[in-house]
């Protein structure tokens, strides 16, 4: 059981990341937050340091959320296949197609799908489930 969690935020909107970061800072169990507006940059960070939780936007330019997940799975299998990172997909769109795609990654720690806007109770619920 962990007492604190490191978190990576991936959303092409810096303003959205800033808001989520502000909410997370109010939660005691969060020890570190790293925000990225580019999924590619997030991958570079994750290669060196796997977080406990990743909040991932889907619709992003250059590399979208599902392309990120494909690359993330490769990285994780090489550097830390046993490390338990929880990936939370965050989107403004709840399409059955998106849910189906997200389920495809279930075996890789992608077990949550939440809708924008993220609020504090969403985050606290997710952490309660982790403990």
């Amino acid at each position, binding site marked *: 059981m962990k007492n604190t969690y490191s978190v990576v935020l991936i959303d092409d*909107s*810096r*303003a959205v990341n*800033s*808001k989520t970061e502000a909410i997370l800072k109010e939660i005691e169990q969060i020890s570190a937050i790293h925000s990225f507006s580019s999924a590619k940059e997030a991958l570079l960070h994750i290669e060196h340091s796997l977080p406990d939780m990743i909040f991932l936007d889907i619709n992003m*330019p250059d590399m979208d959320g599902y392309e990120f997940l494909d690359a993330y799975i490769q990285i994780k299998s090489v550097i830390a296949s046993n490390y338990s990172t929880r990936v939370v997909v965050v989107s*403004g769109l709840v399409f059955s197609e998106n849910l189906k795609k997200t389920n495809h990654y279930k075996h890789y720690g992608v077990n949550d799908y939440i809708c924008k806007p993220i*609020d504090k109770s969403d985050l606290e619920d997710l952490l309660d489930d982790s403990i």
Partner: protein
Amino acid sequence: MEDNPYFVPCELSPELLKDLLPVFFEEVRADYEVLLQFLGQKDHHPMSQGVHKIKGTALSYGAQGIHQAAIALEEALKSNKTNELEQLINALNFSIKEAYHYAKSHLMIRD
């Protein structure tokens, strides 16, 4: 605050909103400028990407007017209603300005 249709503050405290809203408006304005650059081009994908981002950002900050204007523009792009785009972009710009003036006068955000 509830009477203003352009900005419904989200759950953040007024102090945090005051810090974060300049970031929000800077980003939304920059994204709006990108939309203008692509207006008139046949390929609507860059505009769709941009307006989708504005929509999500506005939703996160409770900026209802901007969110609704972005939805209308996104729908027009999806339906290929090119003759409506300019008007809807102007409506989006109006919503951004209204929300900014409201946030500035009610929340005393920085310029």
